[in-house]
């Protein structure tokens, strides 16, 4: 009887096209849209080569340090190239700034340089920072040379070799680079969170399937439910068969979504594939439990149940960052309890911890939270479902 029920549940589910659209196709479509829309976002945030103009003048040509620095920073072979420079006259520079072809232009005067930009911004600040740095270097050279000369003279040597001192100072400055060591993780692509919330949403959407199949078994929901309720079959085994069938269908959908996101959309789930699968299995279980819960606890018609389930799923996905990744962080930081009890966030955070963290504590915390959530939902539904009797329907 169990297998009979299992088989027919699968058949019923496979015939419901709308159900399959929302649980199978919709996440895939949404994922494709995410990938198309967000693929450029992170690259757009990288520092681009900044277009600037320098007003040609004798002051600029005479200023060796400025000349060298900007030549170096705009050299195409330089790995840390910062600028693309147009050398032109003042009117043209103004026009280019007006047309937003450049971020700003430099105008050299006697012992002075003016920067003109169109607005405040990061690129503008970088331009200013570079000019500041050159000014600071010039000052440094002056101070250091004076100091060197003083030192030479005070040591009793009046035969000062100016060239030698100048070269020394330039060498000192050139070898004064900071000693930075980058220890950040390679996996820093925050767009991934979008896809993790998508998986979370799909997992919870799976609840629609289990809700549909539970409604099918409830005497107060459908004619089929009435008929199956009066058969002399143990309700537990019948429900179990149906729910296993819905879990099975759900996992097929989840599998397709994973294959699609991994091979077509190039989503990175980190390196621990087994744990990724485990999380997907438990996440789907949470969706299933949620569906059964909504189906049994809310005594209302099918459409309202559907509305409740979808609204809850969307709210959870929203809080876990689907409509804006910052949302998850803001909630995590300020109202952590909200995301600790939010199943979508448990799933998202589980994938995130697999992707970003080397340790697994956080992952297991999320996994266990999900299991507790599912168990709780199933337990409540079970107590609601057992020994149901109807005086009239």
């Amino acid at each position, binding site marked *: 009887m169990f297998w009979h029920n299992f088989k027919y549940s699968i058949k019923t589910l496979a015939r419901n096209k*709308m159900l399959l659209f929302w649980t199978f196709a*919709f996440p895939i*479509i*949404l994922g494709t*849209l995410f990938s*198309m*829309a*967000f*693929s*450029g976002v992170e690259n757009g*945030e*990288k*520092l*681009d080569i900044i277009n600037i103009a320098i007003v040609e003048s004798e002051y600029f040509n005479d200023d060796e340090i400025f000349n060298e620095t900007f030549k170096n920073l705009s050299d195409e072979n330089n790995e840390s190239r910062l600028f693309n420079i147009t050398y032109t006259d003042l009117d043209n520079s*103004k026009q280019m*700034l*007006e047309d937003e072809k450049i971020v700003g232009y430099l105008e050299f005067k006697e012992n002075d*340089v*003016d920067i*003109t*930009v169109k*607005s*405040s911004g*990061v*690129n*503008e*600040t*970088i331009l*200013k*920072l*570079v*000019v500041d*740095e050159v*000014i*600071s270097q010039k*000052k*440094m050279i002056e*101070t*250091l040379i004076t100091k*060197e000369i003083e*030192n030479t003279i005070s040591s009793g040597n009046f035969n000062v070799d100016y060239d030698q001192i100048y070269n020394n100072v330039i060498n*000192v400055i050139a070898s*004064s*680079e900071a*000693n*930075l*060591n*980058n220890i*950040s*993780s390679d996996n*820093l692509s*925050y767009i991934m*969170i979008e896809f993790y919330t998508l998986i979370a949403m799909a997992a919870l959407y799976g609840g629609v399937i289990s809700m549909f199949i539970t409604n099918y078994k409830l005497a107060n929901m459908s004619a089929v439910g009435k008929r199956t309720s009066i058969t002399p079959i143990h309700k537990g085994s019948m429900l179990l068969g149906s729910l296993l069938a819905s879990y099975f269908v759900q996992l097929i959908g989840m599998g397709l979504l994973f294959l699609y996101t991994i091979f077509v959309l190039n989503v990175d789930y980190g390196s621990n594939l087994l744990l990724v699968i485990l999380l997907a299995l438990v996440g789907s279980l949470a969706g299933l439990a949620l569906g059964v819960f909504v189906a049994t606890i809310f005594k209302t018609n099918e459409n309202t149940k559907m509305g409740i389930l979808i609204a809850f799923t969307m709210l959870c996905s929203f809080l876990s960052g689907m409509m*804006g990744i*910052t949302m998850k*962080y803001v909630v*995590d*930081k300020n109202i952590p309890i909200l995301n600790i009890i939010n199943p979508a966030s448990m799933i998202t955070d589980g994938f995130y911890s697999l992707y*970003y963290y080397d340790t697994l504590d*956080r992952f297991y915390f999320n996994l266990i939270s999900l299991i507790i959530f599912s168990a709780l939902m199933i337990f409540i539904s079970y107590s609601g479902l057992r020994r149901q009797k109807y005086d009239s329907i």
Partner: protein
Amino acid sequence: MTVFKTFWKVIIKYKGTILLYTILLVVFGTLNMASNDTSTVFVDSKPNILIVNNDVYEGVTKNLIDYLQNNTNIVEVEDNEEARDDALFYRDVNYIIYINEGYRDDVLNGLNPVIDIKTTGDYQASLAQMILEKYIKVQNSYLADITDENELIAAINNNLEEESKIQINSTVDTATTSRLARYFNFASYSIMAAVIFIICLVLSSFHEKTVNKRIIISSMNYRKHNQLILTSSFLYSVIVWILYVVLGVILFGDALFNLRGFIYILNTFVFTFCALTIAILISTLVKNKDTVSGIVNVVALGSAFLCGAFVPTELLPDTVLNIAHVLPAYWYINSNELLANIEAINFNTLQPIFINSLVIIGFAILFIVINNIILKKKQIVG
């Protein structure tokens, strides 16, 4: 009148959905409004950073931290590595600087100690790194000649306090206009969803088999019935348009009461009309309510994602934008962006916007034609 009344009765049933899209518009269409203040005085951009100081807060270490505090935004995060890593991942901070134990002594001994950093690699992080590198470079250079700590600090600060002169040369207040553009860009999604979704649902109620049969045998002329339905749909779209314009006026006030604002409003009308024709076409193609919600979600979300209603167009890859050309929302959003950057509004500068509007009207006509062809075919079959 019966048809007209029924139409509105069904619409009222879906007021929750309309409210939802309106709330989305208010929340997301205005999200970035707080930032980006306009000013004619240059303000340095300050990257968000975190400093983890494992050394004493004295001498050169203190001076480094003070310098960073003046030139960056120090973000408050819980004092553990996980919170810091989260903050970095979600771009709450762009750069984390770890000052190791013994930093001060190592600097004074001329060892150029290693500074561990974590970076998001974006332009904010590059800026933070430049600020840090600049400071360290000055410090290291002076160390060649100065060994006394106080003297060193004085020399560094003296050197760094010099700043270049920078001025802003701008004529339009692009911040306000781009906020307007952002609002109307997002409105393209709300309009599409609210107009197409609701009209399709309402029309599918009329198309329901039993209802439809009763309508057919009624004494009402079928032409008149159709006309009433179309008029009501049109009226509903106009109401949605007015609602979002009024909302815009509430949010932006004066910024809409000028020629630029007028063109924004007009453009939005053209787009709303196009959304209406899409709605009618979809409702002709699909009768089933469940299918309608599937199709509408895909159409509205798809065009919003691909055309730049959610993500600014300059961040979308070229291939996506090329695909987006076949969607009316692309032309509407393109007009919004253009309009935000026009300095002098006159016939010449408005030309591309007129062309965009013509394209949108072209789409609308196309949808109407397709709709009529399908209707005709269906009549013959029926």
